[in-house]
């Protein structure tokens, strides 16, 4: 188990995102002395790149039909998510101090009705991609061609068969405004022999597999869709890094 004893990671993450709040300090507030499991840290880099450089969402546009949608499907990865939402001004930093408390809006899994900027409530694995497919279809049906839908999943989450319904269908209909991001920290019990990206590319998706710590590579991959097919980004997190 990786913990925040790996403080160098946190120090890197503590660089201010937009001049408002350093994420590292905010993450410490969420942590409140607890130990984080590795999934928290493995997700942080991709979240930072998304919110810094990719997603067209601000606290002022959380209800704008033309905004990009970010759907956190692996709902347990909330610590970095909440810290980033606070860093970007979607939620007050004070909310971070009592996660899961009786008066808190922040649970161990996020609830979209309680948190500005959160597109879906998640927790039970295997729901985000189907919701993302529906969101992408709904935007397209209304002529909203600018916004893009990003769904963040984990490699173990792909065990859930519901994902494979969504992967096959999105590929078959060429759902070009959808990007799936899979943080691959090799946590799927039976693994993905041949690579998990093949499950997508066999169904007509484009795919890029990159180092999940490399912000430049992540940015290139996250903006590497071609406009005719759904796109996959695999963010690989090697153990111990």
């Amino acid at each position, binding site marked *: 188990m990786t913990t925040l004893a790996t403080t160098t990671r946190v120090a890197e993450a503590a660089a201010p995102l937009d001049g408002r709040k350093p994420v590292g300090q905010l993450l410490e507030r969420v942590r409140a002395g607890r130990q984080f499991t590795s999934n928290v840290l493995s997700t942080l880099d991709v979240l930072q790149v998304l919110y810094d450089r990719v997603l067209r969402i601000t606290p002022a546009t959380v209800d704008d*039909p033309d905004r990009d949608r970010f759907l956190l499907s692996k709902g347990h990865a909330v610590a970095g998510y909440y810290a980033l939402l606070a860093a970007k001004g979607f939620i007050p930093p004070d909310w971070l101090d009592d996660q899961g408390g009786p008066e808190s809006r922040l649970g161990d899994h996020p*609830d*979209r*009705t309680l948190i500005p900027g959160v*597109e*879906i*409530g998640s927790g*039970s694995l*295997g*729901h985000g*991609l*189907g*919701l*993302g*497919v*529906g*969101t*992408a*279809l*709904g*935007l*397209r*049906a*209304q002529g*909203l061609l600018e916004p893009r839908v990003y769904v963040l999943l984990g490699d173990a989450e792909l065990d859930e*068969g*519901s994902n494979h*319904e*969504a992967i*096959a*269908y999105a590929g*078959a209909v060429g759902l070009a405004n959808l990007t799936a991001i899979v943080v691959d920290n090799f946590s799927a019990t039976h693994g993905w022999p041949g690579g998990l990206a093949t499950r997508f590319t066999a169904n007509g998706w484009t795919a890029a597999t990159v180092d999940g710590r490399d912000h430049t590579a992540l940015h290139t991959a996250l903006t590497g869709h071609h406009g005719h097919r759904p796109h996959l980004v695999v963010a690989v997190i090697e153990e111990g890094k």
Partner: protein
Amino acid sequence: MRDRFVETTTALLAEDPRTALVLADISAAAFAPAARRHPDRVLNVGIREQLMLGVAGGLALTGLRPIVHSYAPFLVERAYEQIKLDLDHQDASAVLVSVGASYDRAAAGRTHLSPADVSLIDTLHGWTVHVPGHPDEVPALLRAAVAAEESAYLRLSTLSNGGPHGGDGALVVVRDAGPGAALLVAVGPTLDAALAATSGLPVTVAYTHRPHPFDTAGLRALVDREVILVEPYLAGTSARVVSAALTDRPHRLLALGVTREELRRYGSAEDHTRWHGLDASGLRRSITGFLSPALV
């Protein structure tokens, strides 16, 4: 009923650009003309019921009004968690329309039977359930459900009464047996058998196509002491609601419907109606047994 559903949905898709239809192959051929006219809003995801509900949730989050349709066991039972999470938990809503009620497809066996669907929807909050008793009831119910903001479940059947009974779902007295009579509430296509079963008995018969929310005010206005529920799905599904509505009144309740036992028999829907005691003679047997102590 399915034909009326297809006609009405096809019209709604043309009338309102907010309307969308999500299918999992079932009835796809019947909706082919609508799919040609509205390719972005008639979405057949293939035989993928989890995705069908997930897509409906996503569509609703973008402001569309999805109608979701399949066989009842696949729409409600297979995708129950998606109904709970991809609609309700997201504060999103949809109109679910099933065919293949209870034992409509009796010869297909257990995989295509779905007597538990209304019970499952009853575990959720804020849903309206319509069980039309005649094809002519379907268009108005569907239009009202789609025009509303909340989620609704329309349960279509191949079984029906001889004629339609309109209304908004409030209990409608079909036969009034006068003061002191027992009250029988027949839901959807059980009405004709219930009327035949209670011929000559001191039983007032009321009809509803809307078991949820149940018309508890109408119930309280009509009940004397005995209440008989006849439902075309799991026996006792609405017993909880009736009991709660009458907690302050001495009353007796007989809740009839489809039994939980798996019969492992094929045959026709009419055969299963008889085997579950929901035909006129079976109902009369249960009802006279229930009323006899009161008559002694």
